[in-house]
C-alpha cells in the first residue's frame, strides 16, 4: 500500500485532504445553521430544545458528530502543518511587497483558521461542554413524554454577555474570510476548474461565504438586543 501513503504525503494528496475536510465542514455549517435558526422561533425554546435532544440522542447523528470532530481536527492540524511547511519553503521574505497579486484571505488561511479554532473552543466550552458535563435544567413540554435539557436557557444567558457576542462576531468574520477563499479553492484543489462551471462555483462561494456567517450572526445579535 506504499502508493497510498505516497499519495497522502504528496503535496497534492495533502491538499486533497484539506479540500475534502473543508467541504465536509461546509456541509456541516448548513445543517448546524438550519437547526440553530430554530432559536429564533417564538416558542420559549421548545422546538430548539427538542431538536437538540434529537441531535444528541439519535445514534446516527451521534456517529456523524464523531466524524465531524475528527474532520475539524484533521483539517486544523493538516492546515497548520501545511502552513508551516510553506513558510519554510519560502525562506526569507521580500523587502518590498505590494500584496496586490493575491487576496488577503488566500495568504492568511492559517491565521483565519486559528481564529475560527479559538472561536470553536469558546463555543464548545460554552454549550457543548455544559451540555455534556455541566448542569443544565430539564424541562418538560406538552405532547412530549420525556424531559429535555433547557439549552435555550443557556443560550439566553450566554448572549446577554457582550464579550461573548463580540467573540462570536469576530469568529464569524474570520469564517467569512476563510470561506471567501476556501470555498472555490476546494474545487480548484479537486481539479474542478471548468469554463462553464467555475464562474458558478465562484459566485456560489461568495454568496455562501457572506450569507451563512450573517445568518449565524443574527442569532447572538437578536438575543443580545431583544431577549
Amino acid at each position, binding site marked *: 500500500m506504499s502508493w497510498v501513503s505516497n499519495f497522502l504525503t504528496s503535496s497534492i494528496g495533502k491538499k486533497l485532504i484539506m479540500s475534502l475536510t473543508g467541504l465536509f465542514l461546509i456541509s456541516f455549517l448548513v445543517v448546524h445553521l438550519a437547526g440553530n435558526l430554530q432559536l429564533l422561533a417564538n416558542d420559549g425554546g421548545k422546538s430548539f430544545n427538542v431538536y437538540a435532544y434529537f441531535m444528541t440522542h439519535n445514534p446516527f447523528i451521534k456517529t456523524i458528530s464523531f466524524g465531524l470532530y475528527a474532520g475539524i481536527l484533521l483539517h486544523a492540524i493538516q492546515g497548520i502543518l501545511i502552513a508551516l511547511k510553506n513558510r519554510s519553503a*519560502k525562506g526569507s521574505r521580500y523587502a518590498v*511587497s505590494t500584496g496586490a497579486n493575491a487576496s488577503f484571505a488566500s495568504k492568511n488561511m492559517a491565521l483565519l483558521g486559528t481564529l475560527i479554532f479559538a472561536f470553536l473552543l469558546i463555543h464548545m466550552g460554552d454549550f457543548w461542554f455544559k451540555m455534556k458535563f455541566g448542569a443544565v435544567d430539564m424541562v418538560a413540554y406538552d405532547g412530549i413524554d420525556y424531559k429535555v435539557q433547557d439549552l435555550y436557557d443557556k443560550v439566553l444567558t450566554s448572549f446577554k454577555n457582550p464579550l461573548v457576542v463580540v467573540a462570536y462576531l469576530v469568529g464569524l468574520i474570520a469564517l467569512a474570510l476563510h470561506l471567501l477563499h476556501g470555498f472555490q479553492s476546494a474545487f480548484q484543489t479537486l481539479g474542478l476548474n471548468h469554463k462553464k462551471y467555475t464562474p458558478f462555483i465562484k459566485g456560489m462561494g461568495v454568496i455562501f461565504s457572506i450569507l451563512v456567517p450573517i445568518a449565524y450572526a443574527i442569532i447572538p445579535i437578536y438575543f443580545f438586543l431583544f431577549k
Partner: protein
Amino acid sequence: MSDMNLTLKVWRQKNNNDSGRFESYQVAANEHMSFLEMLDVLNQTLIEKKEEPVAFEHDCREGICGACSMVINGRPHGPQGGTTTCQLHMRHFKSGDTITIEPWRAKAFPVIKDLVVDRSSFDRIIQAGGYISVNTGQAQDGNAIPIEKDLALQAFDAATCIGCGACVAACPNASAMLFTSAKVSHLGLLPQGEVEHSKRVQSMVKQMDEEGFGMCSNTGACEVECPKEISITNIARMNRTYMGSVFGSDKTV
C-alpha cells in the same frame, strides 16, 4: 531622449553563505532602455570604479529564455504584466524613482550571487518526466495527426512557459505548481505526449515535492506575475490527472 536619474536598492550577496544586504546606487538612464540595459549602465560605472558589478542572469533579451529573473519593487519581472525583465522598458518608471531589486526568494532557489539564483531544481523536474521518450521523427505533415483546434491552443498556451521561476518567486508558499502543471499540460494534451502522461505526472510531482517547493494554496499570485500568462487552470488539470493517475492507473513512481 529624456534622461532619468534613479536610485537603485540592489540586493548584494557574495555567495550562498553570505547573508546579503541592500546597497544603494545612483544611475543615469533613459526611458528607451530596457531594464537590463539600465543595469548594464550601472555595471559599467561600477567596473570603471573598480567595484564588483551586480551579477544578474540574462541571455536572449527577447523574452523567450527565462533567464532574467529578478523581483522589481516587490514584483517578479517588474510592474508590467505579461512581460519579462528584459522586455520591460524604463518608460514605466519616472526620473527620481527608487527601485528595489531582489533575487527570487525560495528555499528551492538558493542565491548563487547577488540576483542570480540556482534554478536547477526546475531542470530536475523536467528530467523526471518532462520529455517524450520515443523519437517522434520528422516534422509531421500538418494533417497527419488531427488535433482539435482548442486542444492545440491549450497545449500551445502551456508550452509558452519559459521556465523563468517567477511563479515560485511570486508564490507566498514558493510552490512550483504553475511551472510543473504547464509542462505536464503541454505534453499531456498532445497525442505524442499523451502516451506517457500518466507516469509523467506522477514522476514530475514527486520530483517537485522532493525539491522542497511549497504546496499550492490557490492564491493565484503565480498567474498574475507569470510573464507568459500561464493560467492556473493548468494546476487544476495537473491535480485531477495526478489523482487520476494515482488511483486509476497501475503506475506507481
